[in-house]
């Protein structure tokens, strides 16, 4: 089979929904800026692109009309390049990468951009017209709020509030350190003059977090401080055959070794990464001990800690530059961010294997194993 590589990664700054610096930016414009930035940074020949695949969790309103095609047109991609929108909620843009990799291995193209976008300012979670199936709502937790699932995980896996808060403080600290060391600026494409993330709060202390009220359940343990914030942002990676990347001198970050999807109970959707990561590791023929870099999306501290525990991950290797609790979680964009990040970190740290994985609302997990070239 043909090898598939990640040959570039870029993202927009991430900002809080509603009050952040990107609240007034349309999601299609936001993603187009990132796509343009990725092309410029990698030097890829846009005419060689087969397709632009864009993940988005609520593809309606300004994110509607097959936003992928519109982003391509806004970014002035050649008209020959396709555009497809993918929705797997939080796993949308990681699925976009998987789709591109599959197409390459199928011989259906050499070069793809897999991107993701979410303006949680402009298109609310659940969309503008939430109309759940009444019968399904009765028999399943399919529509359960994400915060409630985080509470369920905390209860079921015994993750204390203090442990969640210590995890959140650490995420903020790592993000702060990475920003201070200039390690995030390389991946960020300025949008409308906004050059840096608005989400991180590096000075967060355990004491401050301990004072917050539970956000989802009066007697619960999950607070706004231990949940990822509602975020506006976009991310994109360049996915291409290894042969093409080498022939065209593209800056290869890592090779895609294996991928996996798995379903789980909707009421504990945060545990999705466990099974999907196990499947992907097995397909790659490696074990948890072989991993040098892990990007585990921090939807909530409770599910992150539970997954780390269940998988037996080495905490020192997880989310080295901070995770979504600090950086934010623009639903559709996160998958591309953490795959791009894991690939970049392999290169930066000189490690051999990386895992990028995330949980998905409704009860799913998705995982990608990367290998250094």
């Amino acid at each position, binding site marked *: 089979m043909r090898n598939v590589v990640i040959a570039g990664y870029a993202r927009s700054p991430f900002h809080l929904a509603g009050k952040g610096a990107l609240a007034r930016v349309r999601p299609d414009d936001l993603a187009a800026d990132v796509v343009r930035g990725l092309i410029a940074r990698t030097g890829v020949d846009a005419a060689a692109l087969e397709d632009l695949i864009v993940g988005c969790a609520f593809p309606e*309103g300004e994110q509607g009309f097959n936003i992928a095609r519109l982003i391509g047109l806004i970014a002035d991609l050649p008209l020959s390049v396709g555009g497809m929108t993918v929705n797997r909620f939080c796993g949308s843009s990681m699925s976009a990468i998987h789709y591109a990799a599959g197409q390459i291995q199928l011989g259906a193209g050499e070069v793809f951009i897999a991107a993701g976008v979410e303006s949680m300012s402009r298109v609310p979670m*659940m969309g*503008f*017209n*939430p*109309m*759940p*199936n*009444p019968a399904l*709502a009765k028999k399943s937790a399919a*529509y*359960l*709020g994400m*915060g*409630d699932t985080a509470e369920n995980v905390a209860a079921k896996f015994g993750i204390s509030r203090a442990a969640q808060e210590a995890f959140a403080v650490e995420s903020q600290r790592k993000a702060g350190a990475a920003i201070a060391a200039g390690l995030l600026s390389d991946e960020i494409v300025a949008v409308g003059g906004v050059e840096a993330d608005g989400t991180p709060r590096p000075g967060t202390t355990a004491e401050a977090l301990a004072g917050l009220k*539970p*956000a*989802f*359940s*009066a007697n*619960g343990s999950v607070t706004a401080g231990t949940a990822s914030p509602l975020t506006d942002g976009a991310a994109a990676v360049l996915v291409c055959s290894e042969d093409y990347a080498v022939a065209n001198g593209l800056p290869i970050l890592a090779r895609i070794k294996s991928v996996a999807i798995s379903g789980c109970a909707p009421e504990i959707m945060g545990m999705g990464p466990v099974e999907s990561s196990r499947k992907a590791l097995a397909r790659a023929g490696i074990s948890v001990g072989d991993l040098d870099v892990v990007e585990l999306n921090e939807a909530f501290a409770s599910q992150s800690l539970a997954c780390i525990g269940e998988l037996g991950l080495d905490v020192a290797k997880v989310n080295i530059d901070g995770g979504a609790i600090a950086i934010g979680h623009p639903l559709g964009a996160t998958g591309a961010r953490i795959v791009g990040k894991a690939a970049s970190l392999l290169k930066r740290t000189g490690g051999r294997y990386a895992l990028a994985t995330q949980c998905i609302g409704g009860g799913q997990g998705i995982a990608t194993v990367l290998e250094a070239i």
Partner: protein
Amino acid sequence: MVKELCVIGAGTMGAGIAAQAANAGVPVLLLDIVRDAADRNSVAAGAIERLKKAEPAAFMSKAAARLVEAGNIEDDLGRVAECDWVIEAIVEKIELKHALYEKLEAVRTPGTAISSNTSTIPLDRLIEGRSEAFARDFLITHFFNPPRYMRLLEIVAGPKSDPALVAKVSDFADRAMGKTVVRAKDTPGFLANRVGTYWLQAAINAAFEQGVSIEDADAIGGKPMGVPKTGIFGLVDLVGIDLMPYLKASLTGTLPANDPYQSIAHDHPLILKMIAEGYTGRKGKGGFYRINKEAGKVKEAINLSTGDYAKAAKPVSIPSAAQKDLKALISAPGVVGAYAWAVLGPTLAYAAGLIGEASDDILAIDVAMKLGYNWKYGPFELIDRIGGADFVARLQAEGREIPAILTLAAGRPFYRVEEGVRQYLGADGEYHAIARPDGVLLLEDIKAASKPVLKSASAALWDIGDGVVALEFTGKMNALDGEVMKLIEKTIPLVAEQYKALVVYNEGSNFSAGANLGLAIFAINIAAWGEVEKLVAGGQKAYKALKYAPFPVVAAPFGMALGGGCEICLNADAVQAHAETYIGLVECGVGLIPGWGGCGELMVRAAQSPKAPKGPMPPVAKAFETISTATVAKSAANAKEIGYLRPSDGITMNRDRLLADAKARALAMVEGYTPPAPPTFRLPGASGKTALELAVKGFRARGLATPYDEVVADKLATVLTGGDADVVDTVTEEQLLALELREFMTLVRDSRTQARVEHMLTTGKPLRN
């Protein structure tokens, strides 16, 4: 008109005035000193931030808050050249004011009004050293705290002030800022504080002298006199006890030596001690009253003779005859009559003595006390209630001096109605009609001059001229019942035949507190479900009949417009609301849902909002959020933000102008009027209801909704999502009303709703069951 305004001095008064000018829709530059060289506007900017958080709210809307810009007097004073009115509200130090005016004179555009918010410094001293041109443009505008809510504005013009400019400022303050302007002469304390300070001092002295407890003093000197229930000591606690020596020093220093205030203005050692120890009132450790938290939030009162606090005692009981009859009050036996007279006798005589000196007419003083101190009656109205001859006789018996106006009155009342015209006694000894300013129309005047066109036990219909009638609610708290609905049904054919338009308006304390729950609970207690259903269905029918009547209907709410009081506005063709309108569908608070068409009307408004996304859910979700949380708007502007009012609905800033504005709006709609077409709805049915249920479950989990809230929300969701309707169906207004009635009747039979209604009736607070 004033297009841009500058307020200098960002203290409590300056900032509050700036906020009210912004509420009027005018950009305001708020300036104060530079305290921080790095952040030069920090003083004014800090004041704006405090205004945004003020309780009660200083701003009426978010848009108003954006109109105030912070600046500082060192860098930005030059910008007063762009302003048409500059209000100075800095500290009461004449040398600082003089220095500021000197700088202002150099940068202002001639013709720009400059006014001072001083409460103590005479105008002639303020303009010392200034040019003739400056003096021409200068006046005093004395606002009351808080400037948004206190309607009184005392204006003092000097002999050199340009009358046209004074008129321009008065007109803006009246129409745009909603103030009732009272002209005062350039005398110390002007009107309200002059009388008010005397009154408080006399009342405090009498309590000490007669050994009256503060609980008794406030019980006697409060409600029976038409004074807010804080009475005397409660009021001083509220405004700050430390303000008393300051007011006293200012008045004794400026009033002539023979002014009667001089002889009563003495200090009480206990009060000085309280101030020294930080007992300055509610803002301090406590005042005459304090809440003892250690004893479990017990309200305590100070003993004026010992200075010790003890649990506030139940005050002396006021004989029932004396509760409403002032004559009976001042002649009541024992402490009640003695204290009442000791307060009222000298105070009313003092007020009467100000005619000629501080004001040329009684109207200004009465209005000043009613709007500046929230007295129900002004001093001269109080004298009328006692009886002028009796009052004079008692003063004479005590050897007191009789003020000239009382001698002139010679026992005649200060106010009378002659041939339907309200008149007052002038300083010339003649009666004069009470002239209302242009654009002020009061139902009070119409009622004095005419008989109702129709009348029932709870409502009346008045001819307000030019072919327009006004529907007035007359029940307790203007509550709505079957009698109101019956009158509406009779009104419609009558207006259709003989008049052009209808306004819904009254002059109670509030527009309407909603349906008469007392009547409802009576019917519920005897399980007269048929009667309850008749009341709800009758209300729906009457309101829809108003909506589809062949003439324009304009509702003119003010104050509280709750439940059914809100729904009559929602069913009107247009609303002309007073700026201080607190409108809301609050039925869920008593375990009910809107039953007089409120559900559908709110969805229609939400769907018409240009900001609303397309699809069946957004109007439903918006109405659900608003109704299920019993949201009450904090102003008419806020009601537009929430969606109770349409963008096209009008807002009147001055309460006295509301009826005239509503009438004009109704008349403007007469030509070519066609009733609205009934709306149809495309509702999401069970799927949408599921989404709302999920949201309510989240609120329950977070402890924000009670178990019964969930039940009530479920019924509300059923109505708003169209019941059994599917998203492809069209739901008519009639179908929605039937659904509203059905779900209302389900709730009203639930004992938990009944418990909520009873609790509201007995405590005035919602039961969270």
